[in-house]
């Protein structure tokens, strides 16, 4: 499945974006002047601590929300000028959204879940089922089409969600903490799937706070207090390089990894001590960064 060919190389173009909430008398600047350009066929990780504005940015990127001021041009379409209905159409045709908690319809089979976006589409009227099957095949779930979400493992559920995101051939795939609810083994499977899609030409933007997930992206954008504090290729991102070094040194040691985490958080958010609690799988023994991943084949990796 190839992404829709774009007239220009630039898929996402954000200029001077601000998002301001008013909570009572207080004004919260969730995004405070963000400029961001994402080109076709990039794989970008957006990182940041809680409250850094990365979720707000993600919602605006996914056309679920609109900026207070600033421009957001998606694939040549000025979405900051659009109303609710036109935004819904953009979401349907341009964006594949993947959620942390999968958001599958529990009563419907995998196939029906994947067909859902085409229900609201003017295209693919008569090919919906065929396309959904193809998308499920692409994520390696061809033999699970009739299963309901509660009959699938967590990794399989997320792959159904990915198939659903891909089925309308979106120009960008947005993933909001896609591995947040998964164990280490399944996380690797999902990440590998993202890499494969990226190799096939899919533009991917992923929000995560896990450095090793971000390590698979080509580029890392770091946010703090609603501003972009760092935007560099993964290999050149200082925090990530530091993390890789520490991981290599402190492999297997729970204490060191945890220490590294604390320091990383302190670096990312100098004024705010007290980092988020990390997932347990950091403490597990695992191969060095990026060396090997399990193939995306479908085996029972345990229910979530």
């Amino acid at each position: 499945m190839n992404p829709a060919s774009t007239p220009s190389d630039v898929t996402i173009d954000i200029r001077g974006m601000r998002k301001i909430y008013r909570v009572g008398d207080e004004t919260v600047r969730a995004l405070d002047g963000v400029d961001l350009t994402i080109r076709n066929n990039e794989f970008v990780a957006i990182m940041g601590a809680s409250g850094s504005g990365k979720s707000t940015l993600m919602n605006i990127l996914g056309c679920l929300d609109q900026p207070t001021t600033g421009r957001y041009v998606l694939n040549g379409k000025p979405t900051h000028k659009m109303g609710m209905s036109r935004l819904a159409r953009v979401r349907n045709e341009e964006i594949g959204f993947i959620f942390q908690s999968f958001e599958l319809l529990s009563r419907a089979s995998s196939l029906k879940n994947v067909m859902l976006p085409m229900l609201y589409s003017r295209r693919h009227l008569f090919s919906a089922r065929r396309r959904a099957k193809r998308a499920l095949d692409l994520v390696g779930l061809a033999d699970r089409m009739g299963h309901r979400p509660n009959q699938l493992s967590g990794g399989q559920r997320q792959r159904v969600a990915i198939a659903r995101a891909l089925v309308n051939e979106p120009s960008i795939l947005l993933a909001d903490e896609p591995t947040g609810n998964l164990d280490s083994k399944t996380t690797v499977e999902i990440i590998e799937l993202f890499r494969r899609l990226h190799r096939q030409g899919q533009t991917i933007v992923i929000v995560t706070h896990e450095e090793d997930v971000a390590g698979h992206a080509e580029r890392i954008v770091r946010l703090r207090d609603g501003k972009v504090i760092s935007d560099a290729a993964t290999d050149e991102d200082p925090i990530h390089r530091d993390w890789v070094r520490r991981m290599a040194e402190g492999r297997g040691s729970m204490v060191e990894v945890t220490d590294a985490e604390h320091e990383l958080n302190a670096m990312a958010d100098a004024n705010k001590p007290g980092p988020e609690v990390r997932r347990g799988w950091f403490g597990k023994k695992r191969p060095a960064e990026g060396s090997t991943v399990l193939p995306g084949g479908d085996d029972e990796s345990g229910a979530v």
Partner: protein
Amino acid sequence: MGAVVRLLWQTVFLAIGQVWANKVRAVLTALGIIIGVASVISVISFLNAGRDWMLDQIDSQVGSRTMWIWGDVPDAQRGVMSWADVRVNTTEARLLLERAPSIEDLTPMCNRSWEIGYGKETVRGASVRGVWASWHDVESRQVVLGRPLSRIDNEERRHVCLINEVAIEELKLDVDPVGDYLLINGRRFLIIGVLETKESGGIFGGGQPRTELYIPFNTHKMMDPYSGTWFQANMVDAEQADETQAEVRFVLRTHRGLSGDDEDTFEMEIVASAIDFFNNFAMVITGGATVVVAISLFVGGIGIMNIMLVSVSERTREIGLRKAVGAQPPVVLMQFLVEAVVLCVIGGFVGLAFAFVLTLIPKAVPDFPLDEVPLSAVAVAIGMGFSALVGVVFGILPAIKAARLNPIDALRHE
């Protein structure tokens, strides 16, 4: 367009799935609708069956095409006009037969109570009616013995009479009295026939059968020229009652030389007015039933709205997801509206089933006058239409609520 149809189609299936997943809840919710639709359909069906039954009764008694015409002094002219001036006469009877094609048959009639004697037996106050030979057709009463009246009997003012079976009993006549003579007001009359007895009962009650005698109209007039006179007629078509009345009015007004502003000096009555009476009665019942139905549909509608609000809030995340993958607000609105309508229509079908069971009750009850109560198609249409309408009216608010949900908030909803 194709997309809309497909979406609607899938939405209907989705809604049926929703209802099926919560069967008990759906039935409890739709109870008001079920009761409302069941009452609409059964009340209308019973009223229809009752009217048909009554028309049958009228037909078997007098015929629904029967019409009566008589002279009448208008209220305003009571002081200057006498009853004799407006009395209908045989000239007018012939005129009507000739010029009013919507009148199929007609007989003038007059009536008096006279003393009847046979041997030592006397009956006082028996009804003696003067009629034309056409009376046999107008009232469709034939003779079981002897012969009917003829035109010649009338023209020659013969002293002949027809009697009924009660008269045979009361006057202690022969089992076959044809050829015997009896006395009417002291005059000797030849009995030429015995009339069939009409089955009485039904809505007219019948009461105690009485001695009845029928003699030629002219003979009757000769004995008493001042007795009250009227026409009894058969219309060609009972459905055309209004047109028939207009025709009769025109002929009589023309004949009597009444000009534009003059009031009619005659009156007419049709059996159809008995149907009017029934319709009034049916209207009262329908009015009462409408109140009951309106209340139950309203309560049912509130129930639907309540359950749809619950449904919207318990499926907030689902709505958020649908919006996130591109469902436009009107589409979400339609989805929940269709669900409410489907819920109501399913309730309507259950109500229809209940109504059908209710209409089977008369068969099971012995001696109930109505045997068959067919479901009225109009009632079914009204019932189903109203249940769908309730779905739309009470489903719109929850649907709007769903359509207005902000996708981000909806997805964050727990």
